[in-house]
Structure formats: structure tokens, C-alpha cells
């Protein structure tokens, strides 16, 4: 390539090289002079302009969607709250301002300062960092009058959530609280100090209820005072929510659970909507939304009755005798049980060397299926359960919704447990025993259910076999999750037995009789401990609270095309009939007559006394604590 060498000998044009160097010099001089002019010569002036001529932007908070009950009564509303923020760019002496804030609000200066240092990078220099999220009116007045002397301090108006019935619906509504770091990271729409739903409906429907913030632009002068304001984006309010809950019924249920621990679920058997979902003891949603103090939190956490637990969906209990309807259903489904066939109950049955007793010492005599259900004969079901074996029982129980979450729109629901041979082997390393069959067939042992599962199953019996998804919203679409695998005639048999349990003079739910309403019921007792002979001798009132059995009652009620299923569990309520029965009765009266019958005062006093005694005893080292069966609930 001769051409290559030819040009290689040549030197680059000298004038060209000089030109390039001159251009660099020119560039440097031109910009150096201009920068000097802008930043030094006119620097002060521009610095002033920068502060004077500032447009700032500010969020306009959107009101969170209101929550109403099924009749339109307001449950959760927004009320104005005033927050104190500090704009660090406008604040000449931050320490001095903090001392003043501490003096106004009684907060600790060092705490404020630590909070400021930790969070200041989260907001821009010209944006307020919220130091006090919730000023009282006294503080507000005090600060408002002195604000002009304290540039950089800003009062912000923002809506705050208020729950009108704080403890009544805490487990349904949940609560909102300031977004934590994780939530801020996840959702760029959130800013420090924003409230988000943390529990319950507030959590589950966060996106629907939050709305969208608006944006305002305003000019500020040197002292950060606002001049002109213009709305760039209007805020969009969150959607309003109507719950399926009936406030009156919820109040009634909570009143009956007062001083007790337990849960009530009332389900519309045609739609799956819950008219009441009560759990006690409860907590106050407002405590959480206004920021729980460490003492409040410690009290909730250390309360032996666990008020944070939603007993309707998060606590699992042995179903006791209410499970007999599942066992009877399984027998019908597999054609292994003739409803007419009778079994002789002598008060006990034997399995190997062990004796399994009926609750009625003298026995029931000859009983068929209906009588066995009505009078809750244990021996009848021991025998049927033995015949059916765990495999069929478990399969049928699962088919009617036990052992699975109901899918209610609340967080942290439990599925309960339906034991199988494999499960027991895995869990305990033991094979399934004949005695396990017998225990299972009367709802004791390893079977664990939630009150909501019970309500759903009984709603299925009264509505002709549809297992409905439990709904909390009034406008939610009814969803049939499964059908009870029985013929209409077979379901009718089960329903008739329920009604007879109320109507028949030997039935265990006679107290539920209500004029004009077709009521069905089933009691249940969930054993907490295997009764020792020592305890058996005691009268009910003398049994220590924590050894007392849980009382169940499941009921159906029907009148003029309105059908409901009700499940009530009272922890340590001794018997279903006496512990849970009056609650069910009050609910039925309310639903069909509108009558509000609150819990009698003496009943409350008695419950209070029993619990106080047991709490006192609990504090002493438990000598016979080993009797408590693990995993009962």
C-alpha cells in the first residue's frame, strides 16, 4: 500500500494544531469568565433569587374511602388532623427550632433531633419533614400564633382516620398506620408519614380506599411564606366501602362476648355475606392509627387472652359434637349408614381395654340417626365412625370445607386441621389407632376448625348444599365454592335433625326455640384437657377457668325466605348449651324480631369474677399445668 507510506511521512498541518489549541484556550476563557460572572460576581444576587423566586409543590391529601355498615351507618371516617413539619432549607437554626418544638409539645429534644437526623434525607430540602404528626388543638393554637417568628416551621393539614366504634370491629376493619420503610420502598406513591392499611379490610382493600393525592404548586418568598397557589392535579378521593356487617348485630354479639373470650359468626345462608363477625377480647383500632405507645403494645402483647387474635378465622378448636353432622353426612354419602338403623347406647363402648363413654351416663337406649343427632349420643357416632374409618371421614370433612381456608378477605386466616393417617405419621411418628377414629367421630382429638368454617357448613345445610365464600362487602358477588356431596333428601335429613334438636323436648338446643322461626341447632363441647377423675368430681363452677371446656353452638334460622347460619364459640364456656346458647338466641331474636337483648349484668359479673380468679392463679407457677393438652387451640 504505497499510499499508506506516502502520507505517513507527512506531518499534520501546523496551523491546524495551533487552531485546535486556540479553540481549547478560547473555550476555557469564555466559560471561566461566564462562570465567574454568574457564580461570583452575581452569585449573591442569584442566591437571593433562588430563594425568592421559588415555586414549590405540595401534595393535597386525598380522603380515604369511608366505611359503612350494611345499613349505611358510618364505621370509619376521616377527621382533620394537624401535623407540624420542618423545612430545613427555610430554617435558620434547626437546633433552636427543635428546642422550641420540644417546649411547645412536651416532647424530648433529643428524640426529636434523632428522628430528624434519621429521616431528613427522605424529603427534599424544601419540603417539610413531619416531626409531630398529630397536634392537639391547644398546641395548634400556640404554634399558629407564634409561627411567623419561626421560619421553616409548617403546619400541615391532613385527614386522619377515626374509627367510630374502635373495639367493636377492630378485627374486621383492622387499622391504618404510618407506612413503614418496607412499604415506602415498595410503593413510590407513598411518602413518609402517609397512612396505609395494616390489618383487616383497611389492609385488604388498601388500593381501593386510598385514593390518589393531588398536587398544588405555590410560590414562596424568602421566609418560606406562601404567595400564590395553583392546583396542578386534583386529589381523587378513595372509594367508599359498605360492609355486609350489621352494626346493631355486631354490637349485640360483642356485648354477649363481653368479659369472655370467643367468637361469633353470622352468615346469610343465601349470599354468604357476614352480618356479624365478632371476636373477643378485642383491641381499639384508634390506638393503632394514632400510634401505639410502647406501654399499650406491651399490654396487648402480654394479655393472656390474646386480644390481637381474631378467633373467628385465626383460632382453631376441636369442633366437638357439632362435628357429628359431618360424620352423619359422611355415612350418608358413602351409603354406609342407614338412617333407620338403630344402635344401642348403654352409656359406654369398649375398644380393646379402653372404655369410651357417652356424655349421658345412663345411656340413650336404642337410637337412630336423627335421635343420635338430636340428643348428641356419643356411642352411636363411636360405632359409625369406627365403620367409616378416618379415610372417609377426612375425605368428606375436606369436601365440606374443613381443613381449608374459607377465602374470606381478611389477612392471616387459618385452615384448621383434618387429620389423616399420613398426617399423624408425619406429625407424631405414630400410626392411626382405633381410638383416634372414635375421638374423631365425636369431634375431639386432632380435628381443628374455625368458627367461620362451622358457619359456612351449617349455612350449606340450610341452603340446600351450597358452600358459600364468606363475604364482608355488601356489594360482593355471591360465590359458591363447592356443593355438599349429598342429595337434597339427605341434606334435608340433616336439617330435620338440626330443627328437631331445638323442637324436640329431648333435644339439646331447646333454649333456641323462637316463635315463627324455623330454628335448628347443635351444641358442641371442645375438650381442653382429658378430664381426670379429680376434675370429674368437681361441680362446674369449681373447675378452674383454663381447664374448662370450650362451648360451641352452631345454628340455622329460617323465616320468610331469610336464612342464616350462626356459629358461636365461647372459650372455656363449659357447655355449648349454656355457654354459647344464650348468645345464639339473642342473635336470632335480633335477626327476626329486631329485639336487642343485651347480656344480663349478673352474667357479666360472674364471667368477670371467674376470669379474675383464673388470671390470679395463672401467675403462680402452674403445678398441674401438664394436664393442658397441647394444640387445643
Amino acid at each position, binding site marked *: 500500500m504505497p*499510499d*499508506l*507510506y506516502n*502520507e*505517513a511521512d*507527512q506531518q*499534520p*498541518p501546523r*496551523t*491546524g*494544531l495551533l*487552531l*485546535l*489549541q486556540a*479553540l*481549547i484556550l478560547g*473555550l*476555557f476563557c*469564555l*466559560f*471561566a469568565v*461566564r*462562570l*465567574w460572572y*454568574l*457564580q*461570583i460576581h*452575581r*452569585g*449573591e*444576587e*442569584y*442566591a437571593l*433569587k*433562588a*430563594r425568592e*423566586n*421559588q*415555586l*414549590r*409543590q*405540595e*401534595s393535597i391529601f386525598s380522603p380515604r374511602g369511608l366505611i359503612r355498615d350494611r345499613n349505611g351507618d358510618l364505621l370509619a371516617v376521616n377527621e382533620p388532623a394537624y401535623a407540624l413539619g420542618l423545612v430545613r*432549607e427555610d430554617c435558620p437554626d434547626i437546633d433552636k427550632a427543635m428546642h422550641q418544638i420540644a417546649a411547645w409539645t412536651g416532647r424530648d429534644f433529643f428524640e426529636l433531633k434523632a428522628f430528624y437526623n434519621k429521616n431528613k*434525607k*427522605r*424529603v*427534599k*430540602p*424544601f*419540603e*417539610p419533614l413531619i416531626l409531630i404528626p398529630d397536634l392537639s388543638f391547644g398546641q395548634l393554637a400556640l404554634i399558629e400564633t407564634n409561627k411567623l417568628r419561626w421560619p421553616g416551621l409548617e403546619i400541615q393539614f391532613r385527614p386522619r382516620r377515626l374509627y367510630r366504634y374502635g373495639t367493636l370491629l377492630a378485627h374486621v376493619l383492622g387499622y391504618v398506620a404510618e407506612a413503614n420503610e418496607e412499604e*415506602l420502598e415498595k410503593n*413510590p*406513591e*407513598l*411518602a*413518609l408519614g402517609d397512612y396505609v392499611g395494616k390489618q383487616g379490610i383497611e389492609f385488604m382493600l388498601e388500593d381501593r380506599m386510598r385514593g390518589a*393525592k393531588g*398536587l398544588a404548586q405555590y410560590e414562596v418568598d424568602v421566609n418560606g411564606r406562601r404567595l400564590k397557589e395553583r392546583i396542578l392535579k386534583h386529589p381523587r378521593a378513595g372509594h367508599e366501602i359498605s360492609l355486609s356487617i350489621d352494626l346493631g348485630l355486631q354490637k349485640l354479639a360483642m356485648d354477649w362476648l363481653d368479659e369472655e373470650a370467643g367468637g361469633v359468626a353470622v352468615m346469610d345462608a343465601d349470599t354468604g355475606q357476614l352480618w356479624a363477625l365478632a371476636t373477643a377480647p378485642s383491641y381499639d383500632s384508634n390506638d393503632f392509627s394514632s400510634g401505639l405507645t410502647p406501654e399499650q403494645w406491651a399490654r396487648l402483647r402480654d394479655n393472656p387472652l390474646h386480644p390481637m387474635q381474631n378467633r373467628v378465622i385465626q383460632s382453631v378448636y376441636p369442633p366437638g359434637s357439632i362435628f357429628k353432622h359431618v360424620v352423619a353426612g359422611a355415612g350418608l354419602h358413602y351409603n354406609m349408614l342407614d338412617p333407620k338403623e338403630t344402635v344401642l347406647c348403654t352409656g359406654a363402648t369398649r375398644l380393646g381395654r379402653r372404655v369410651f363413654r357417652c356424655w349421658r351416663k345412663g345411656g340413650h337406649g336404642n337410637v337412630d340417626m336423627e335421635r343420635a343427632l338430636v340428643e348428641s349420643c356419643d356411642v352411636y357416632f363411636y360405632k359409625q365412625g369406627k365403620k367409616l374409618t378416618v379415610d372417609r371421614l377426612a375425605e368428606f370433612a375436606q369436601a365440606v370445607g374443613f381443613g381449608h381456608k374459607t377465602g374470606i378477605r381478611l389477612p392471616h386466616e387459618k385452615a384448621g386441621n383434618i387429620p389423616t393417617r399420613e398426617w399423624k405419621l408425619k406429625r407424631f411418628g405414630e400410626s392411626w389407632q382405633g381410638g383416634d377414629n372414635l375421638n374423631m367421630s365425636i369431634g375431639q382429638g386432632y380435628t381443628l376448625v374455625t368458627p367461620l368454617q362451622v358457619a359456612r357448613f351449617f349455612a350449606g345445610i340450610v341452603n340446600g348444599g351450597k358452600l358459600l365464600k364468606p363475604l364482608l362487602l355488601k356489594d360482593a358477588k355471591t360465590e359458591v365454592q363447592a356443593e355438599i356431596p349429598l342429595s337434597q333428601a339427605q341434606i334435608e335429613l340433616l336439617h330435620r335433625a338440626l330443627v328437631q334438636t331445638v323442637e324436640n323436648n329431648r333435644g339439646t338446643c331447646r333454649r333456641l326455640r323462637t316463635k315463627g322461626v324455623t330454628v335448628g341447632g347443635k351444641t358442641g363441647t371442645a375438650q381442653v384437657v382429658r378430664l381426670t377423675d379429680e376434675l370429674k368430681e368437681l361441680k362446674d363452677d369449681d373447675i378452674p377457668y383454663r381447664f374448662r371446656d370450650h362451648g360451641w353452638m352452631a345454628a340455622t334460622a329460617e323465616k320468610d325466605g331469610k336464612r342464616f347460619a350462626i356459629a358461636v364459640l365461647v372459650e372455656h364456656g363449659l357447655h355449648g348449651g349454656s355457654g354459647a346458647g344464650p348468645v345464639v338466641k339473642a342473635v336470632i331474636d335480633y335477626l327476626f324480631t329486631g329485639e336487642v337483648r343485651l347480656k344480663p349484668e349478673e352474667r357479666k359479673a360472674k364471667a368477670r369474677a371467674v376470669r379474675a380468679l383464673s388470671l390470679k392463679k395463672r401467675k403462680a407457677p402452674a403445678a398441674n399445668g401438664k394436664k393442658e393438652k397441647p394444640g387445643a387451640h
Partner: protein
Amino acid sequence: MPIDRRLLLYINWPLLGMAVILFLVGVLNLYSASGFRLEEGMNLAPYYHRQLLWGLMGLIGMTVFMFFDYRHLKTLAWPLFWVSVALLVAVFFMGKTIYGARRWLDLGFMNFQPSELAKIAVLIVGARILSREREPLDFLRLGYVLGVGLILAGLIIKQPDLGSGLSILMILGGMILFRGVTARVFKTCLIAIPALLPLSWFFLHDYQKQRIMTFLDPTTDPLGAGYHIIQSEIAIGSGGFWGKGFMEGTQSQLRFLPERHTDFAVAVFGEEWGFVGTMILLSLFCFFLYQIVIIARDARGLFGSYLAAGVFFYFFWQILINTGMVLGLMPVVGIPLPFISYGGSATLVNFCLIGLVLNVSMRRFLFKQG
């Protein structure tokens, strides 16, 4: 072929160092400019993060451009030119429209701007033609060289992308000046160009006229086009001597301009680092340019010199125009500041061109052997 140790020895390390330092300053500045959580919750994408990735790709591209002997580009010059022309034509038919301009080809994984390739092509073709010119250019030769540039520039201006089109002409123009023209040509141009410039007014779009008007008097439209200029000056000016500190820039309005991480990135820098910072940055850029001049001077063979001169002008014009615009010395045109402004393909091309001049510096000993 074992790598000759002199290849590494002759690399212009100061230039490479400058490029990397400038790039890192840019990333740091982007980190501040792209902001974080605003009070209304707007969260800008982490541009600095993507810029870093582009920078890494740029370093790879740079290495590629250093590997082969740059003299082979002589034979590739014309094919490259025609490929550019073909792609620019293709944009008209298959291009992707963003902001009303057809500039991009969708390659599936990224959007590619053929105008970036055209800038490289004009450099190489220009170097090839000019390195063979024995005498300063007369009218005929000048017309030939300019004609080649106008084909590319015309296609780009049609997109429309006036900024890129003009920069092609300006790179080529710079290289022509580097070569030198006859006294007659020089004198004629000196008179003709200022005389013809006002005519171009009639070919400008309305928004372009508007920008020139607002440059001449920003206060005519203080809330519209003039706003950028005013805010940019305030931001830089308020930085004062020492600046407001990293991430402490307060020019709130500027923060809401999308250009603050691209064309106006250096305004954020000026506000936060003050006169001290801007002078250091300016010095870095000048030193960077000077190293390219050194390479042009020491290159063995005119082709290498002209390549270096072309790269020099490629960077020089961008620095001049962007900084001039941010400092209120020039009208607003969408030209980024190399290494400081956010931009994926620009970063890639910048590093590739650095690789090209390093290539020239590495191989300056080869001819001595021959």
C-alpha cells in the same frame, strides 16, 4: 500475533483517565439530579444506575475500537458511509416515532439512532478524503468534501433532528479548518456565511425560531421556553463559590424539568459544587481535549491525525454548545454534555470514539519499523 508491549505503552493513559473521571463525575451528578422520594411521591427512575451500565458497555466498545489497526478504516470508510446513508433512509420507512420525530430504529433489545453511526462515518470519511489533500482546499475540493457531509446531514435534518444534522456539518467543518483552505476560499466564506445565515431563518421550524427569540430575550416567555434559561442561570449562579453541597441543590423548579438529568445536568452540578466545582470540571474537559490534540500531533500518518481532529471536534462542539446553552450564552438546543448528561447511546459512542483515538496513539510507532 502476540500483543506488542509497545501497544500498551503508547496508549494515551491521561486521556483514558480523563474520560473515566468525567464519566464518574457525571454518574455522581446524575445520582443527585435524578432525585429520590419527592413529597408528592414521584420517584424518578434511577438514571445513574442505567448510566453506569451504559458506561460499562462503553468501555467494552472502547476496547473493541482499540483492537484492530485503525488504518483498516481507510478501506472501510466508503462502505461505512453508504451503510449510514442506507440506515438513515430506512428510518424514514421503519423508524420509530418518539416525541414526533422519526430517529430511532427498533432493534428489539434497544432503540438505535442511525444518526450516531453517521457521526462516526463522517469522521472516517472526512479523515480519508482530507488526509489525501496535498494542498489547502480550493472551492472545488471544498465543495466535494462538504457535499459528502451534506448527504448525511440532509437526511438527518429531515427526520427532523436539526441538532445532529448540524453537528455532522460542524465536525466536518472543523476538520476542514484543521486541513486549511486557500486564502480565497477563507475570505469568501468569511463574508458569505454571515450574509447567508439570516436566510436560514426561513427554513427553521416555529419552535426553533421561538428558542432563538427566547434566547435573545428570555423574559418574553418566562414561564415557557425562557424558563429553562432563567432557572438554569439561577441554579448555577446560586451555587456561589463553594456550592450548596452534594444532593443539596434547591432549585425546586429545575428538579421537575425532565432535562435536568440530560441537557441541563451541568446546571445541577454547578449549583451543588459552586465555582470551585465548575472550574475543576472545565479544566478537566480542557485537559481532555488537549490530550486529543496531542494524539493528532504525534500520530504517524495524516489519516490518524485527521481522525483525532474529527474526534476533537465531535467533543468540542458538544461541550461548547451544551455548556453555552446552560450558561445562557446560546439558544436552547438539545445537545447533551459528553459524559455528564444522561444518555445511553451517546455514552456508548463517546467511549467508542475515545477508543478510536487511543488506537491512533497506540500505533504511532508502527510506521517507524516500516
